[in-house]
């Protein structure tokens, strides 16, 4: 009964979305206020209905209602409650429902908090948002109904893929979706502006927070996924350049570009048509990501559904929205008059370069991701493009970006003198070189990677600090009174530096040891004495575990005792490794236990991973920086305060 109610609510939401997509659009065109006003209640109703449907599915999972096909395939009575709930989106149908729920949430949020938006723009934004909602609700209802019943309900389910039964991964998809779908707001605003034929500072001021929020969620989502891979897959890899990871990375890069170009629109009324294009492309890549994951076209691990029918449906959605928006763009972009005038050396130019680097690097990732498909279709060549290619093709862009970033961030609007500008950065440069030298000395000599990455990382961090110092007029008292946006910028840019340093130092300096360890016999890995003390078996809630106890000592002093596990999930007949990690500021000690060997010992892998935590700490800093910017007073007080074009250039 509950499931049928959920299904019914979903159908109603689909109908509401169609009304919301049509009526306000016509109203905005004819300037009928009553018709435009339909958008608000419709957006709320759509959200409530989808939420009801999602709630019904969650209820079915929590109560283990195996008469539902989806619950049967993805749940089990013995599964811990957390994973019963996260099982809702640990499968194709449920994850699409979550996608639509978040989409409706964003639409409703625009209706609730968009009171200050011009009514016509708001009606159009909500209508475009409803079109996207209707498309995906239709996709769910026609190809992936989560509420399909089984004629003869079985006694128990088939359990969730054990790899997904992990707290890191339970929250990874919702964050990613918040990011993907958040970009739909930027898209809706862009299309509405194209229909309107007008983009101004107020528009940019509206788009920026939405994009920023989406980017924060994407950052957290990607970081969670990478952190999960690091501790769960058993060899401490954190990024694989897998098609599905790339699918989340491309929107991230474009959202970062969009964030920066929207600043130029807001402050200087330039780069308008480029910003619109970026907004369309950023969401377009979210859709491409959804297509890659859902269609299984580039076969990858995440593809829950290798189903051509679904793939074609999503391709049609993609073609309709991106194609339609681009056509509209081609017709209307020329009407976007740029106003700001600036010289070659200015912050505007710096932000243009930022956009070029981010967009081209996203293009490189995109081409690398689809190349196997293209090569096979066009030339019948079966080939693979993987991490070694991406590392070489992508990294140079990030190096150029890191070199230019602190200089660009210092630039004033309109025009700048390079010589005067660079002076405050000299201490940062000296410190960065010192850090690079330090890394060169301590990392066992062999790695240029450690040198470059730590140098660039330090350059970003100290460059950001130098900028804050300069911005406060070199007066300590004023530093704390700087607007949060300045702090956000400083934190996010430093976070990027920390990520660079962490990745480089980890890849350059990690140590690995694979051996058969005998119980009670210590062995040494880069200065640590490790002893396998014992190995025991015990039963978990829905798995059997083999747990090792290992003692890690250094110079006779006990550092830590770790318990790596090997789990076997009988229902899914699948083993997983649960590495145990001693997290440290400068290094992680990462232990994995393997199989029992013929001579009575156990296979043990030891990894020493320097600076591993810096990668995720840096990601969190970036996300926190975004949050600081988002809570800046200007957005809270003046969000949506309509500003006319004449006073749109603040004297900053």
């Amino acid at each position, binding site marked *: 009964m509950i499931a049928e109610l959920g299904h019914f609510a979903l159908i109603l939401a689909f109908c509401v979305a169609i009304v919301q997509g049509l009526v306000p659009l016509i109203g905005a065109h004819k300037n009928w206020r009553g018709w435009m006003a339909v958008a608000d209640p419709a957006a709320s109703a759509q959200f409530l209905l989808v939420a009801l449907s999602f709630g019904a599915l969650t209820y079915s999972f929590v109560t283990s209602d195996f008469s539902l096909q989806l619950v049967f395939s993805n749940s089990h009575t013995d599964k811990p409650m957390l994973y019963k709930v996260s099982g809702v989106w640990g499968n194709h149908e449920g994850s699409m429902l979550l996608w639509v729920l978040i989409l409706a949430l964003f639409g409703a949020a625009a209706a609730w908090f968009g009171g200050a938006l011009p009514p016509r723009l708001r009606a159009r934004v909500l209508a475009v948002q409803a079109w996207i909602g209707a498309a995906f609700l239709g996709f769910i209802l026609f190809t992936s109904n989560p509420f399909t019943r089984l004629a003869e309900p079985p006694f128990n389910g088939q359990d969730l*893929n054990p*790899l997904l039964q992990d707290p890191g991964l339970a929250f990874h998809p919702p964050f990613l979706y918040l990011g993907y779908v958040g970009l739909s707001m930027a898209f809706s605003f862009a299309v509405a502006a194209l229909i309107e034929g007008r983009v101004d500072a107020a528009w940019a001021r509206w788009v920026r927070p939405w994009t920023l929020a989406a980017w924060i969620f994407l950052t957290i989502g990607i970081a969670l996924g990478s952190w999960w*891979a690091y501790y769960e*897959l*058993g*060899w401490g*890899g954190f990024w*694989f350049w*897998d098609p*599905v990871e790339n699918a989340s990375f491309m929107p991230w890069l474009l959202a970062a570009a969009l964030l920066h170009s929207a600043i130029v629109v807001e402050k200087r009324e330039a780069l308008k048509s480029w910003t619109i294009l970026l907004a369309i492309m950023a969401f377009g890549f979210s859709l491409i990501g959804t297509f890659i994951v859902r269609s299984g076209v580039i076969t*990858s*691990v*995440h*593809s829950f559904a290798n189903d051509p029918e679904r793939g074609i449906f999503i391709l049609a959605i993609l073609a309709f929205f991106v194609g339609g928006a681009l056509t509209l763009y081609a017709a209307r972009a020329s009407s976007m*008059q740029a*106003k700001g*005038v*600036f010289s*070659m050396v200015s912050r*505007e130019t710096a932000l*243009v370069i930022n956009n*070029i*680097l981010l*967009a*081209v*690097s996203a293009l*490189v990732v995109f*081409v690398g991701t689809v190349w196997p498909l293209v*090569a096979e279709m066009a*030339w019948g*060549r*079966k*080939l*693979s*493009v*993987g*991490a*070694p*290619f991406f590392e*070489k*093709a992508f990294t*140079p*862009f990030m190096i150029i970006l890191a070199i230019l970033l602190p200089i660009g961030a210092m630039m004033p609007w*309109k*025009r700048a003198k390079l010589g005067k500008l660079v002076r405050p950065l000299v201490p940062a440069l000296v410190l960065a070189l010192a850090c690079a030298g330090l890394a060169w000395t301590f990392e066992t000599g062999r790695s240029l990677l450690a040198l470059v990455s730590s140098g660039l990382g330090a350059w970003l961090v100290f460059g950001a600090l130098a900028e804050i110092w300069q911005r406060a007029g070199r007066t300590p008292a004023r530093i704390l009174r700087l607007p949060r946006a300045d702090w956000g910028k400083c934190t996010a840019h430093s976070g990027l530096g920390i990520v660079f340093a962490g990745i480089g130092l980890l890849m350059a300096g990690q140590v690995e040891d*694979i*051996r*058969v360890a005998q119980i009670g016999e210590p062995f040494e890995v880069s200065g640590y004495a490790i002893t396998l003390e014992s190995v025991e078996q015990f039963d978990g809630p829905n798995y059997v575990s083999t747990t090792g106890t290992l003692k890690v000592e250094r110079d006779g002093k006990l550092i830590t005792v770790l318990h790596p596990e*090997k789990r*076997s999930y009988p229902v899914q007949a*699948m*083993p997983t*490794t649960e590495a145990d990690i001693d997290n440290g500021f400068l290094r992680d000690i990462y232990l*994995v236990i*393997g*199989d029992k*060997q013929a001579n009575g010992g156990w*296979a043990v*892998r030891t990894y020493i991973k320097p600076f591993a935590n810096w990668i995720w700490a840096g990601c969190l800093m970036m996300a926190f920086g975004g949050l600081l910017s988002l809570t800046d007073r200007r957005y809270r007080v003046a969000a949506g305060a309509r500003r006319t074009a*004449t006073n749109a250039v603040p004297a900053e």
Partner: protein
Amino acid sequence: MLKRLALCLLLASPAFAVQPDEVLPDPAMEARARQISQVLRCPVCQGENIDESNAEVSRDLRLLVRERLVAGDTDSQVLDYITDRYGEYVLFEPEKTGANLILYYLGPVALLIAMGGAFVYLRGRRREDGPGTGLSAEEEARLKELMKDEPGK
């Protein structure tokens, strides 16, 4: 990563990647073997390299790589040997031949084109003056001031 791992795990016994008995006694040669393993794709998994993979065939490939190294092959000879037998598919970094050149040069070329386009645009931004651009009097004045500063251009 999920399903590919799942797939490999189903195909293989629950052994995890490189086993202690595969490791070569010479650390330098082992390091080379690991380097090579990271460029080779497991033929039956979805996008894992043979170093991380748990599939039986990856273990065979790892042993083959080590065999060739012990026999005195250079790194590129080992890669050629394996590509000859398993096809270009197992290379994670496709050969720089034929159409693949597009893949390799697209990034730098796109960067150059974008930089060129941006240069033209930025120059246009600097010069934009004339009527009809909708500049306010205030902006007009600022523009004049700006142009005054750079007489040479």
